């Protein structure tokens, strides 16, 4: 039987894209300069750090779990890269990303092996990572010298043919992680575990290993996001990414990935990130203070969760 034109699944798939288009048009009507190509490029480049954080956490959310440590991980890697770059050069970048991966691995281990609910496991790990960040930065904001940045972080902050490199990095991540989720066995297992964990377990797949890997991926992407953030701001600090946890999770949910797991994709998160960016800019044009924007993001998050959640999967909502 053919799927009806307006099936629930189709509407849910198309809704985020439609929301993005409508919001862009609205903001463009209020402020026509917003739609200028040069401005759109800047807006997209600004959004990519958020997308990097959100792309990794998408895997975790698709498992039906959550990662509340990404902002702490990103702050930590910004400190590591800032503290090491001038002295050690490019080595600082892989070291920082590796630190992010290890943090994700730790979260995954605590969650899977110790069987601690993921929101508590990652909350606890975020505390540990904040302390690591304070130690790495000696409790202050660490500047990244401009020469060192131009030499080693040009891949993140430079421009080629007029295109900011953040966008290139974002697109590479979109393609690679999109491919991982859609085409590899790992991606298939992530989707399967999110839909029906016990069935996957019964079919002999090492569920625990897949989950740990997903958390490690989330930590890695948060780590990369921290490096790019630090590079853009020209400094690393233990509180650099603190305001990004809520928007990052909102990107994933607004894009149409359900927190109950199973449903979702990286391009949805990409759309979600752009939507959040357009909303943010729209609010700025309308004169909503930067401070008050957290209120809107909080409400958007709750509304998006309510819309995308699959309630047939959870007998009791705790």
């Amino acid at each position, binding site marked *: 039987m053919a799927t009806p034109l307006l099936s629930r699944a189709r509407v849910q798939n198309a809704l985020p894209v439609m929301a993005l288009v409508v919001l862009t048009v609205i903001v463009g009507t209020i402020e026509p300069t917003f739609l200028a190509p040069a401005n759109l490029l800047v807006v997209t480049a600004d959004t990519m750090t958020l997308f990097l954080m959100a792309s990794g956490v998408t895997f975790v959310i698709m*498992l*039906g*779990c*959550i990662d*509340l440590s990404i902002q702490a991980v990103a702050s930590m890697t910004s400190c590591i890269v800032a503290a090491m770059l001038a002295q050690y050069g490019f080595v600082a970048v892989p070291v920082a990303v590796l630190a992010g991966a290890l943090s994700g691995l730790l979260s995954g281990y*605590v*969650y899977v092996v*110790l*069987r*601690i*609910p*993921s*929101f*508590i*496991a990652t*909350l*606890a*790990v*975020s*505390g*540990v990572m*904040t*302390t*690591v960040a*304070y*130690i790495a930065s000696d*409790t202050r904001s660490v500047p990244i010298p401009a020469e060192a940045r131009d030499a080693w972080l040009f891949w993140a902050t430079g421009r080629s043919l007029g295109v900011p490199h953040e966008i290139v990095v974002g697109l590479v991540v979109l393609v690679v992680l999109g491919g991982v989720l859609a085409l590899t066995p790992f991606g298939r297992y992530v989707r399967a575990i999110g839909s029906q*964990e*016990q069935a996957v377990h019964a079919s002999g797949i090492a569920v625990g290993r897949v989950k740990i890997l997903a958390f490690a991926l989330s930590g890695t992407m948060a780590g990369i996001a921290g490096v790019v953030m630090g590079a853009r701001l020209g400094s690393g600090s*233990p509180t650099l990414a603190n305001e990004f946890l*809520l928007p990052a*999770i909102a990107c994933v949910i607004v894009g149409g990935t359900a*927190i109950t*797991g199973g449903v979702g994709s990286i391009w949805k998160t990409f759309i979600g990130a752009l939507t959040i960016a357009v909303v943010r800019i729209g609010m700025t044009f309308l004169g909503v*203070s930067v*401070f*008050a*924007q*957290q*209120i*809107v*993001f*909080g*409400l958007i*998050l*709750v509304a998006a*969760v*309510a819309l995308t*959640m699959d*309630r047939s999967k*959870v*007998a*009791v*909502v*705790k």
Partner: protein
Amino acid sequence: MASGSLAGQRNRFARWRGLAPVGVLVLLCVVITVISPNFLSFSNLVRLLSGAAIPLVLVMGATFVILMGSIDLSVEGVVALAAVITSMLVLNDFTSADLGLLAVPVAVVAGGCIGFVNGFVHVRLKIPSFMATLGFGFAGVGVATAILGGFTVRIADRGFRELALGRFLDVPFSVWLAGMAVLVAWVIQERTRLGRWVYAIGTDEVTAKHAGVPVERTRILVFTLAGLFYGLGGALAAAQLGQGHALMGTGRLFTTITAVVVGGTALSGGVGSVLNSVIGVGIVIVLTNGMVLMGIPPYVQQGVQGLMIIVAVALALDRSRLVVVK
């Protein structure tokens, strides 16, 4: 009988586990006293108590939520908002209000309102509590920042600040107030239907519902109650620091959750009590104080608390009840 002895073993184990937090607290006190004899001086004990006052008030609310098997991540947002509201209602340099101590009940009610919204949205929209409270917690910080625009309110009301600075029998008023909060929470837990319903929901929500427990109403009520306690905590924070700004809640969530789980209340619900959480606050505060006395930098505390959460939850989790952990 085999099953009988197994049950006996289980009981003995459960009793041992119930006393473990007290043992940890005593052990910590002994170790710290040996390293730094100053620990037991009267002035340090008073310092410990006044440091414990706000966390005590906050955990009283969080304990009930966690006993239901839910979680409340809105602590920081509610504390910040309540503190900002309080600081703007007493004599201050930002508004012309001068309500004095009347500001405290206003802050408590404001906290209760956010708690109610948390509970209402969680229950009516069937959103997991960690998501609803995460969203509204951030929104709370947002409201607090939007009101002040980054400004810090300075409180000029000496009478109001007496709440934290004034003393009765050499112990700060805030500590007495926290003691009363504990008493209220204990009475609710032990002597009211609400208290019994919380345990019933935490142990087995479906059965509780079949047995006639008004699950939805109880849930909303418990989140509201938690908000009331956070509101009081925010007012006390304003009195203690003598100011109000949007980041007043920073770090409170971490301490609160650490104290509840370290005290032995299980995240899976149904196991624990407000008295457990009192012990939990004791452990967190004594450890923090001990680290200060030993000269360990303050920023290490969050990391240590994070590890404490992991260890405590790993030890306390009753895994037989969990099929799939998310």
